[in-house]
């Protein structure tokens, strides 16, 4: 009885992880499948062809390239805008601070479908042609809030004595910002950017509304799902997954190293770029 009690929780955790990871295993496994017909639902045999000819299905290559392009430019823009907002909110007391917090929090608590639909009505009403530009606009809009939350969390724990020391040693505000503030914030900004990029290349709902005839990878999958999804979709998804996991492990190791060197006192969970503290932080 005791033995059962002691092993109940670990056994449960094991099963729960199986549940979480099973679909990932399936995605990767079926990227090696050799379906005889058009449907990639049943295992029919191992092949490397899908990986070697990953861009065989027409349109998949340009969709992946488009996703990466949009991910990079919108992440860059959103990271800059979001970091500036975080600096203003944490470092300054000003009128409208509460309203600013609220405005940052709201997009994260609005269902994506409403964000996409409302942007579409804006573009329709202003007769803006939907395409790359409107996807960029939409992605920057929804990524900014996540950047603010991530960078804000780090700024709140920031040891301001380091900046005061720099100023005491004769550095002006700009030099202090460049040589002290920015380097210390770099891990948080990087986490925010990684999160933003992950959100961008994964986004389907908002993009679907504002894409026009432009096709990103998720839109390609959606179109394929109406007919038959080629195994190459699994190849691309597996590749994205493996890169993301590698980057995340790298980020965690980097955080560990910094911690060991004593330069950063960061709870390790923060190195994992996923929003966790939104509701508490948001309306505060």
């Amino acid at each position: 009885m005791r033995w059962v009690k002691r092993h109940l929780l670990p056994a449960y955790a094991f099963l729960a992880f199986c549940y979480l990871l099973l679909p990932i295993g399936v995605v990767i496994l079926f990227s090696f499948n050799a379906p005889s017909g058009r449907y990639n639902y049943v295992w029919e045999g191992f092949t490397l062809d899908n990986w070697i000819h990953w861009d065989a299905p027409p349109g998949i290559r340009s969709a992946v390239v488009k996703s990466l392009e949009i991910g990079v430019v919108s992440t860059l823009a959103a990271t800059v805008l979001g970091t500036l907002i975080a600096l203003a909110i944490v470092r300054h007391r000003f009128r409208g601070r509460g309203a600013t917090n609220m405005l940052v929090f709201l997009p994260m608590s609005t269902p994506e479908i409403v964000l996409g639909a409302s942007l579409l009505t804006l573009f329709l009403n202003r007769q803006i042609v939907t395409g790359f530009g409107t996807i960029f606009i939409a992605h920057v809009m929804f990524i900014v809030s996540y950047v603010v939350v991530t960078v804000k969390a780090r700024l709140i724990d920031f040891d301001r004595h380091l900046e005061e020391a720099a100023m005491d040693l004769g550095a002006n505000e700009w030099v202090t910002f460049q040589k002290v503030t920015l380097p210390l914030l770099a891990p948080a900004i990087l986490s925010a950017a990684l999160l933003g990029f992950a959100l961008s290349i994964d986004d389907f709902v908002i993009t679907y509304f504002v894409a026009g005839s432009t096709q990103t990878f998720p839109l390609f999958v959606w179109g394929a799902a109406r007919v038959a999804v080629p195994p190459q979709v699994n190849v691309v998804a597996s590749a994205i997954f493996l890169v993301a996991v590698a980057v995340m492990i790298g980020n965690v190791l980097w955080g560990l190293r910094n911690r060991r060197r004593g330069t950063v006192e960061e709870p390790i969970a923060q190195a994992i770029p996923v929003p966790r503290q939104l509701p508490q932080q948001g309306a505060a």
Partner: protein
Amino acid sequence: MGFIHRHRSLTPYLLLLPGIAWLALFFLAPLGFLGYQSLESGTFDTGFTFEWAFSNYWNAISDYHEQFVRSFVYAGVATVLALLVSYPLVYWIAFRAGRWKNVFLILIVAPLFVTYLVRTLAWLNILADEGPVVGFLRDIHVLGADGRLLATSVAVVGGITYNFLPFMALPLYVSLEQIDARLLEAAEDLYASKREAFLRVTLPLSAPGIVAGTLLTFIPAAGDFINAQLLGTPRQYMVGNVIQSKFLEVLDYPSAAALSFILMALIVAALLVYAKAVGTERLTG
């Protein structure tokens, strides 16, 4: 920078300007356009005109109340399931996993790094009629001989639960991880049983995580249409499916806009009820 030195009080506004302008133009203004559009009448071919057409709202509710109810029931069930599945798991990670915590955390968020649509499609493989899961359930007579999982609400709710579970698990983990072990020792010193210590110390202290996780799971789940589309049939369609098809296929913008507004209003109402139940200070920290 000299400018900023002289006008110190302007600094925060200069920092905010680009980002806030972006959110005002592309988040707030569109909501205004959505509201405006929801009160128009007409058709795509004849053109839409604004005329305070509140009838769009009544029509949306009377035509689609079924989908609204379904959205909230599915999202509610999925949120509860995600809580029940992830609580023991993150409890184990926070208190028992020792130095491997970070590895397990990565495993929890791992599904988020598989493209949303692709990981939902993976459930098509897993739950396929000729697949092992359905076969097993048929063998033990949970399902009839020709019973299936795909195209049922079980598959749709299961998909929603799976897709948003990490958003439940992470805030839960953060709140459990922050619990001071000394509090549990104190409870033990005061002769609390394991069960009492859990119910009276651990569970209340993890409440912020439960609240945050519930919001992060419920809101996207209520607006979701992908799971119903890929794993269900029109009989499982949620309000998201209706909005999506009216906006992008039927091109009935006014009624799609009205539906979006009602969805948002209902979510806000649900959050207010929830906030009242759990205490507002927990919601806003």
